[in-house]
């Protein structure tokens, strides 16, 4: 059965990729939707079986052997991978269906479907791996599909650049991940999870010198792996690709850049919890990066005008939450948030896609407004998504996000109280920018000049059904799964060996005021946003005016792109040109082959002069030589 889960999407990709033209785009759409949906249903069945204790590691065949290195292709089913299977295949099948409607005017539908299915396959390979190398395969595989899909509209220059940027920034992360894997192989002589995790307690004290710094081996491994996770999950410093990735079609943003691929980093850290548990340094580092990202991305989201970019920064921020949950040791809570986030963020993206579709590809929220009566279904569904995201009581985000903040508060780590405070501030910001999006998109005056308000209509059913399914998830997934995934005793039973806790999580309860603080802030921010963004713009304008430097700073996304351009892109281009023209051309060639041939030419020109053809010159030279020889012999 697990074979089918993994390989049906691959089959779907093959069929629509190679035979898409022959069988027609409608057929390839139907086939890929059905195959991926079967895979989703099977995943749910597997998940139910895992709940009753099913665990399995299927070895398909060997992949690479070299000396002591032995790597297999494998399908490893355990609680952690089973929950990822459900998230990936479930969201993927909905996105497949949604794409039928969203891409209906595109001439390259089979290609699109093929990429989506291929992505699903790579992601499944990633999560079901039993070793680091197969993980790396899936890791780069999803990166590749993301590259294809961001650049799907290949005629757009900006889309191409965004695609390359995404791939390269991810490669920078992979550079860390790769080194981490090399180090693991160097220390343990194997890259299989089980064997590595078993050996971890033996090397806790071991130190190593890396690039002239003295590290504990375990810290170094964790930090290197985390660099990989930062790249894939768009954490601060390696986040710049994610907002640009919004150049791709919206279903892609929902599937790849919200629900699945970007969570691979979180998955990696949770998967490696048996390593991370022993590294205080790495966990603190993760906490800092996570909370910084959460706050930083939320601050940028406040002032962006592109509907997709707002949600992209929001994703970035939520991933920050997941990371600082792992940083304080609450891996299961991170997974829980990953799980609920997949529903409401995919819902928000697909809802945004529905809005964009209705506006004929308009993405600027300043050119929208006042359309809630025209798009009633989309409007309601977006509201559900927003409520869930902001953590409105009893919706899914409430259970998972507040749990993160609570655990951060309870945990007695160095940074955990600090993290909890940042968590609450970010929750407030999240709520404000989310409602800003809703109000500016659906309420107020109609601001679009290109399309008449009367022409606006809601999206077709094929796009709405996935939204409805996701909204059910956004409403109830928190409440239904909270006991299973983060309950105090029940969750240890479920996760079993797949997540390691060195010490069980704190079972205390935070004080009452703390529990209600976030929900109250979140609820209060709704009317606040309404006043700020709809009722009375003058307060906001005034606020912007007195804080103009801050506003421009946020508007320009903290100037990260400009900084990187200055630090990396330009110097590298300059160096390339310099090496090529100056060193290759002016030094090596000039003194190398060109120099030698020039030299020989000179000598030969010189030698030619001797052959003047005049007998008396030859006779003179001979005489000279003869007398020199004679002199030499006499002296000797």
């Amino acid at each position, binding site marked *: 059965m697990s074979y089918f889960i993994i390989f049906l999407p691959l089959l779907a990709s093959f069929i629509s990729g190679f035979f898409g033209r022959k069988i027609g785009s409608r057929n390839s759409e139907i086939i890929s939707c059905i195959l991926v949906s079967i895979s989703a249903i099977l995943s749910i069945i597997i998940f139910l079986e895992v709940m009753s204790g099913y665990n399995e590691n299927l070895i398909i065949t060997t992949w690479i052997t*070299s000396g002591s290195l032995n790597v297999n292709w494998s399908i490893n089913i355990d609680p952690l991978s089973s929950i990822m299977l459900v998230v990936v295949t479930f969201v993927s099948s909905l996105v497949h269906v949604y794409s039928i409607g969203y891409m209906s005017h595109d001439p390259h539908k089979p290609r699109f479907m093929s990429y989506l299915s291929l992505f699903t396959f790579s992601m499944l390979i990633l999560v079901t791996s039993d070793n680091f190398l197969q993980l790396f395969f899936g890791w780069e595989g999803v990166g590749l599909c993301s590259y294809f899909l961001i650049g799907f509209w290949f005629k757009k220059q900006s889309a*191409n650049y965004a695609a390359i940027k995404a791939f*390269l920034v991810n490669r920078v992360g992979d550079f860390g991940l*790769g*080194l981490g894997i090399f180090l693991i*192989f160097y220390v343990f002589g194997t890259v299989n999870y089980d064997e590595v995790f078993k050996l971890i307690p033996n090397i806790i004290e071991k130190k190593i010198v890396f*690039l002239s710094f003295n590290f504990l081996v375990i810290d170094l491994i964790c930090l290197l792996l985390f660099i990989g996770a930062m790249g894939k999950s768009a954490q601060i410093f390696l986040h710049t690709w994610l907002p640009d990735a919004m150049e791709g079609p919206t279903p892609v943003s929902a599937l790849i850049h919200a629900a699945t691929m970007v969570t691979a980093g979180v998955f990696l850290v949770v998967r490696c919890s048996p390593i991370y548990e022993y590294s205080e340094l790495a966990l603190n580092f993760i906490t800092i990066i996570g909370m910084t990202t959460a706050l930083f991305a939320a601050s940028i989201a406040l002032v962006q005008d592109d509907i997709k970019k707002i949600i992209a920064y929001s994703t970035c921020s939520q991933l920050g939450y997941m990371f600082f949950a792992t940083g304080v040791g609450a891996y299961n809570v991170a997974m829980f948030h990953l799980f609920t986030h997949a529903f409401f963020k995919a819902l928000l993206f697909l809802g945004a896609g529905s809005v964009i579709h209705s506006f004929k590809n308009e993405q600027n929220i300043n050119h929208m407004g006042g359309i809630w009566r025209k798009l009633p279904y989309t409007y309601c569904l977006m509201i559900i998504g927003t409520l869930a995201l902001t953590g409105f009581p009893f919706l899914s985000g409430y259970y998972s996000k507040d749990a993160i903040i609570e655990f951060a508060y309870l945990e007695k780590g160095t940074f955990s109280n600090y993290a909890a405070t940042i968590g609450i501030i970010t929750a407030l910001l999240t709520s404000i920018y989310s409602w800003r999006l809703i109000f500016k998109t659906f309420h107020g005056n109609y601001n679009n000049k290109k399309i008449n308000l009367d022409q606006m209509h809601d999206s077709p059913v094929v796009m709405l059904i996935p939204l409805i399914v996701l909204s059910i998830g956004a409403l109830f997934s928190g409440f239904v799964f909270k006991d299973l995934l983060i309950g105090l005793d029940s969750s240890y039973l479920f996760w079993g060996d797949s997540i390691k806790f060195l010490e069980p999580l704190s079972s205390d309860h935070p004080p009452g005021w703390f529990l209600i603080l976030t929900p109250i802030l979140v609820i209060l921010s709704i009317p606040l946003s309404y006043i700020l963004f709809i009722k009375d713009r003058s307060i906001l304008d005034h606020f912007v005016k007195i804080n103009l430097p801050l506003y421009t700073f946020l508007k320009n996304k903290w100037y990260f792109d400009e900084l990187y351009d200055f630090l990396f892109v330009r110097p*590298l281009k300059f160096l390339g040109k310099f090496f*090529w023209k100056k060193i290759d051309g002016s030094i090596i060639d000039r003194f*190398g082959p060109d120099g030698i041939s020039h030299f020989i030419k000179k000598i030969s020109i010189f030698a030619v002069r001797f052959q003047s053809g005049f007998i008396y010159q030859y006779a003179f030279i001979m005489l000279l030589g003869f007398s020199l020889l004679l002199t030499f012999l006499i002296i000797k």
Partner: protein
Amino acid sequence: MTNFPILSSLILIPTIGSIFLLFIKSTEKNNSIKYVALFTSLINFFLSLYLWKLFDNNISDFQFVETRIWIKNFINYKVGVDGISMLFIILATFITPLCIISVNNHVKIRLKEFLIAILLMETLMIGVFCSLDLIIFYLFFEGGLIPMFLIIGIWGGNRRVYSAFKFFLFTLVGSVLMLIAIIYIYWLSGTTDVEQLYNLGIDSKYQNYLWLAFFSSFAVKTPMWPVHTWLPDAHVEAPTAGSVLLAAVLLKMAGYGFIRFSVGLFPVASTDFIPLIFTLSLIAIIYTSLVALMQDDMKKLIAYSSVAHMGFVTLGIFTFTHQGLEGSIFQMISHGLVSAALFLSVGVVYDRMKTREIKNFRGLVNIMPKYAIMFMIFTLGALGLPGTSGFIGEFLILMGTFKKSFLAATIASVGVILGAAYMLWLYKRIIFGELLSTIKKEIMPDLKRDEIFILSTLAILIIFLGFYPEPIIKTYAVSIDNFVDVYNSKIETNLVEK
């Protein structure tokens, strides 16, 4: 069948084929010369596959050894294969027919002579990979210069004479030193038989000079920084088939030479020179990647990327670890396929547009979708994406390097990022975007049947080996095991003696 001289046949069949070619009349419409050449190379290919089938993976010794006296008490003609050389022979016999199929698109004059040059080239390449006598090896190794020199000098582009001489000058300087070293070895040990030399060993006090002499020849051919500048020029001017042979097989002769002779004969010196090799390899990887990033000629870009990829190979060999050595061999095979495919792909658009300037192309996917798919697969192979053959070599090399030096592995990994940058940027500039208005649809048809055949064969192999590298790995595993063991024991005895 045990007495059948299968290796000698492999070496001789292309030559015999080329002699046949001499007597065939060539006319404009007559394709028979091409078929005869193709037939010859295919016989050789199947024969080499048969050899591979007979080859015993579990033995580390040389197999199918043939010895004939050439000059009594001085030079024996001796050939044989082990797991290391086996794969290179297959690579040579596999690439040659592909070159011959591709020929009629870009060689318009003197087709007969061109095919003769290619077949002779094949003889010499196979000879290099199976010779077990230093003199014989030297003859084959340097003999390869001549047909290549002619291919560039006669059928090349505008600056062909300059490039041909540059190629010749560079490679000749190194090879003279190697010849002196070989004579010196004969003088020292009384034999040039490789197997005997392996057993005898060479006194460690002579090793350094001898190693440097061999190095000077191999470094030029690899090519290593800073003697790499002949390669971009040679590639740019060479006709497509010439570039393919050059990149896919000729460069591998040097990598093979490093393993078989530099490390095999002079283990102590090789260990002493690790810092030199590592430095030069790392410079090659980073430096040429940056240079590749700024190129505006497609062929030059790929040529520079070859230098970077070969930098990985030399890095891997001199780690003396299982992963490093095996990765190097895998990387060479993979690069043979990928670079051949990339040069053929450039050839496809060059034949149609007569230009290789990147800025003359844009948006080819709009009119050549099949070409776009093929080129994408090769691009991915070149940037070492998991699932292509390029990944396995690179990753194993880096794993091996990491064992020896964290710093070297870290720097080399930066090269992997740069590799992705220049390849993807190249692809974006040529394939994506709106179609450039100067490109006419009539002169740019999508891939023809023979082009599809060649490119898809390579693409399938690149992907297949990425997922299932076992056939390659199995062939060299035992030989490399033995090779590493012998190396380690020699180093140990040397330490004890000291």
